């Protein structure tokens, strides 16, 4: 019993870790390759989560839809809508320098979240959406459903990883990294910077939306607190920095690794005296912050640093 309990604890870590790995891959496309400082991850995550939830839940009077569609359709819809939001944001902000882009994206993301909370005709406000289906929910139930979902999440991670690798190992990715490193000379070398940046931002936001959708299907229930920027935006940044910005494998390692540590700190923090437990989330933040400091002292560019892709024709 003890052992199966531990096993399913591990499964839950791997599922959430996979969702964070997706967020890290998405942020790595934007920041690691493109140098775009997206501080509004939670907003795109939220758009994706609500889109997929509304598309896949059964008809309800409490919120928009639901449309009872298959989970795959929900996730594709999540990616498309989050990508469109990304496109709108990029059109406005992409010309901004990175620190301004950070401010603009955090503002817009918070606006998106506030809209979601307040437009309760569509999202049922703070009461949230219930009865969100899992993929293959009709065939499996109970704990084995977690195993199926685990496989589902990591299949999505694999697909996104392969796409990210193709983007990285290509003339497109090379030019994008050139723009990241020196905008002025990339411009002088004929690169349409704005076009590259809009594309990069849209692709990253779409994947963030898919991650949001997956998390909604995982918890089966979605309320605004599931899109807390502290847990989504901040943690994703920490993960990418620790794992290795500019490296897709580093992004996955960072996402999974930091999430595991984050979960383990929960065990410790819960043993603290009661007056401390209320402050547990801050204490965990502090621990994660310290950990990042430690990692970056030892590995400046993260655990798996950026590496130029090999050139195919090389003898």
């Amino acid at each position: 019993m003890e052992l199966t309990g531990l096993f399913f604890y591990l499964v839950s870590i791997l599922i959430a870790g996979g969702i964070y790995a997706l967020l890290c891959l998405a942020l790595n496309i934007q920041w690691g390759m493109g140098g775009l400082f997206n501080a509004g991850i939670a907003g795109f995550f939220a758009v994706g989560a609500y889109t997929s939830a509304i598309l896949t839940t059964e008809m309800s009077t409490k919120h928009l839809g639901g449309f009872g569609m298959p989970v795959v359709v929900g996730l594709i819809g999540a990616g498309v809508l989050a990508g469109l939001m990304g496109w709108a944001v990029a059109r406005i902000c992409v010309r901004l320098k990175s620190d301004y882009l950070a401010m603009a994206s955090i503002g817009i993301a918070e606006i998106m979240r506030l809209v979601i909370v307040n437009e309760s005709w569509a999202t049922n406000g703070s009461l949230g959406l219930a009865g969100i289906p899992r993929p293959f929910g009709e065939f499996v139930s109970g704990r084995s459903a977690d195993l199926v979902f685990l496989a589902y999440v990591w299949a999505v991670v694999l697909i996104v990883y392969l796409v990210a690798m193709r983007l990285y190992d290509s003339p497109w990715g090379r030019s994008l990294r050139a723009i990241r490193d020196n905008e002025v000379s990339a411009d002088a070398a004929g690169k349409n910077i704005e076009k590259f940046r809009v594309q990069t931002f849209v692709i990253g936001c779409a994947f963030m939306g898919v991650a949001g959708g997956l998390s909604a299907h995982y918890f089966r229930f979605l309320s605004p607190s599931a899109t807390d920027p502290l847990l989504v935006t901040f943690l994703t940044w920490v993960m990418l920095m620790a794992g290795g910005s500019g490296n897709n494998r580093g992004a996955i390692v960072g996402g999974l690794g930091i999430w595991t540590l984050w979960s383990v700190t929960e065990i410790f923090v819960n043993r603290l005296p009661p007056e401390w437990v209320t402050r547990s989330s801050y204490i965990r933040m502090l621990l994660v912050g310290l950990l990042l400091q430690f990692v970056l002292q030892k590995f400046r560019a993260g655990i798996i640093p950026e590496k130029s892709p090999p050139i195919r024709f090389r003898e």
Partner: protein
Amino acid sequence: MIRLESICVDFGGLRAIDHASFEVEAGRITGLIGPNGAGKTTAFNVIAGAVRPSAGRVLFDGKDITGLKPYQRAQRGLARTFQIPHEFTRLTVLENLMAAASAPEGENVFNVVFRRGSFDAEERAIYDRARETVRFLELEHVIDVPAGNLSGGQKKLVELGRALMRDPKIILLDEIGAGINRTLLGKLADKIKLLNTEQGLTFCLIEHDLDYVSRLCDHVLVMAQGQLLTEGTVDQVRNDERVIEAYFGGGKYEAQA
């Protein structure tokens, strides 16, 4: 090939270029000289589109390009190097050169994800070209080093390499000689001459070393205090009193001495 028509550039209160008009003729190697702060680099920035003039027009092959962005001018065949190296820091030397090439198929994000074969030939050609350029610039031993870790002179060579990778009609070289050893500099001069005579590539180069200028340039433009002072062959301008005055005597320099 390039024509500036009464260009003015203002930086805050400072007028860096003051109604300058001149032409860089096609097929020639034109030198642009003048004392420090004369406005030479600013003139290059105006030609390349990095600085917007407050007045005047820029023509490229007879067409008005004043409103075009730098990348649009680059796509029309204008290449440049920077006085202060602007390398792609985290890209290797080879990648720096390859990234500078135009790659319409490989820079299409749909092709990159779904049609990997579509840019093979293009990429192969870019790679071969980059290898050849690296060999010529004697950068082979640092071919896989991130460009940010290079020495100043090596970075200058990367600048030049990137311009060569673009297959341009005209190359603007801003003090390419500064920091490069003499033997290689001689080789570069030969290469520039060769590209000019064999391929008809037009050059405009800023250089302080007048011997180097006289070795390369058929025609020299002299700028001082934001204006075109005079133009002609190297020997003509060398003996021009106004040029001597601008370099050795004159106004603000005398006042400081």
